[in-house]
């Protein structure tokens, strides 16, 4: 008994020591620090997790032949996943390839249950889109869509509802939609692009404000499936290109969308659009991409983490109150997230 008791005590004490050391290190520095720890993005202004749900649909099964298979959507999704994980520190990424309507809804539901108050959530969709001319209603088309039966599609209103649920919990939410008529997601409200800035105060300001943003591959128009000899659509090609070639540590969605829109419009007959999801609580904040592929000599890239810390007291009042209130945000959603030990008598 004493032997096992000693082992349990030893493991417990070592665990507390290790977590205390990491906590202390995180609290006492300011500025940029590189250290050999597991890679995970965090902005200097909030400690939320970067999560993504990525959907790519190639293999359409429509017997009527209305929805032809696509060539690049799955490759687009895989490339986006890889880039977000490896270069931008997204630590929780789910990818759906050739997703049915039910699978998409389940994935949205799962994501909304995981999201915590400071999180940054990106949803990417590549696949067919559809718009009813009479009603101007837009849809995503899942791989199990049947002909013109729009009850087998995913309505924009459903997508907005799912995003609104996620956005009600997350700090920043961004939908990137690479499909025909994806601009119809924006019909309920757009806004001008924010001014690009390198000023830290600017990033802090937009990071502390909630954002619910959308990037769409086109307006109310058809968009191309393949760009030249690449394995990607024009929109995703330039979306990936801008993120890959970005040389700044922090890049806002507005900065990214400005560059992507220009690049796409300059090269193909297609004009991407961006804006906010109206009615979902957007406070003119910004989704911020944090670039992670910085080199630390002698440390493997997958072990490098960028930590940018503010001294205690630098956080805003609203940030402090949000941190304090987090433990009490423990309704049904949190209940589902907890991995609890089974209670026994």
């Amino acid at each position: 008994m004493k032997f096992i008791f000693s082992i349990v005590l030893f493991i417990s004490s070592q665990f507390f020591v290790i977590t205390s050391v990491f906590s202390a290190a995180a609290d006492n520095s300011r500025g940029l620090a590189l250290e050999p720890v597991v890679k995970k993005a965090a902005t200097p202004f909030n400690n939320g997790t970067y999560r993504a749900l990525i959907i790519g649909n190639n293999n359409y099964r429509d017997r009527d032949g209305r929805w032809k298979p696509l060539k690049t959507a799955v490759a687009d999704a895989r490339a986006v996943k890889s880039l977000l994980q490896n270069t931008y520190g997204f630590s929780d990424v789910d990818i759906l390839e050739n997703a049915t309507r039910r699978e998409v809804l389940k994935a949205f539901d799962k994501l909304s249950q995981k999201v915590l108050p400071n999180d940054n959530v990106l949803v990417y969709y590549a696949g067919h889109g559809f718009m009813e001319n009479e009603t101007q209603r837009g849809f995503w088309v899942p791989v199990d869509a049947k002909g013109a039966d729009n009850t087998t599609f995913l309505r924009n209103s459903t997508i907005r509802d799912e995003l609104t649920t996620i956005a009600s919990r997350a700090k920043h939410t961004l939908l990137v939609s690479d499909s025909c008529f994806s601009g119809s997601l924006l019909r309920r409200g757009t806004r001008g692009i924010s001014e690009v800035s390198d000023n830290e105060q600017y990033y802090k300001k937009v990071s502390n404000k909630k954002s619910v943003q959308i990037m769409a591959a086109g307006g109310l128009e058809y968009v191309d499936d393949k760009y030249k000899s690449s394995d990607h659509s024009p929109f995703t090609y330039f979306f990936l290109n801008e993120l890959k070639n970005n040389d700044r540590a922090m890049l806002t969605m507005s900065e990214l969308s400005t560059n992507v829109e220009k690049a796409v419009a300059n090269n193909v007959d297609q004009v991407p659009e961006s804006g906010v999801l109206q009615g979902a609580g957007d406070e003119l904040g910004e989704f911020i991409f944090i670039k992670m592929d910085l080199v630390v000599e002698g440390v493997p890239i997958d072990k490098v983490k960028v930590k940018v810390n503010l001294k205690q007291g630098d956080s805003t009042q609203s940030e402090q109150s949000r941190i304090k209130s987090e433990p009490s945000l423990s309704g049904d959603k949190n209940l589902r997230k907890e991995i609890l030990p089974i209670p026994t008598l």
Partner: protein
Amino acid sequence: MLNKKTIIISLISTVLGMQNALADQRITLGAKLLGAGWQGDNGAGGSSFNSDEGGQVAFSASYTENKFYAGISLQNGNYTFTSTAPDQFTSSSRNPSSNVKIEHQEIDLLAGYYFWKQVSLFVDFKGVSNTWSNNNYKQNFGGLGFGASGYLPLNNSWTGFGSAGFVGGNVEDASNVKVGDGRSSGLEFGVIYRLNDDSTINMGLKFRNYKFEYLDNSTQDYSINALFVGYNHGFSF
């Protein structure tokens, strides 16, 4: 006492019946190491005892769907008594024992529901089996228990948790002959550290108390208390 098969079938059918397309469903697997001590009293005419070495390992599997959960936990361990050990009771006599190792096994089949945001009530069909190594005397205790469990998020990484409840049932020997009545109570609390979205480790204290009243009106009262560390991994689908 409820029929064992009825309870198991009820648990399984409840689990299967509650599946629905868009609900949150998860299977959680867990392992736990308990460093424990077994001490108590053999009642009037008997003597007190205290284990010199002891511990248990536990493995669990549970299914969670929204506010509902069901699961199974299996525990096994050994306790060594170099001097006085718990007496062995039969339907007609009490036999003292000492300098013996006792194998202790537990099985819990349980189902619970979060009636409040962070507090659940659960039923636990519990079986406890103790086997004395010197003469293979075996004593079983089992019955239906009721408990409450809860948790409290402390911050993004740490969560406090606890549970308490009681079990009532029969004490039987190896031949399933009733030798007495028993009741037990359990209290557990600790903290959980979240490693990532799917994995947690937990540590804390577990107290269990057993009170047995045998057919000859003699009693036995003991506690098995433990410090534990455990690991849980959830698989969402």
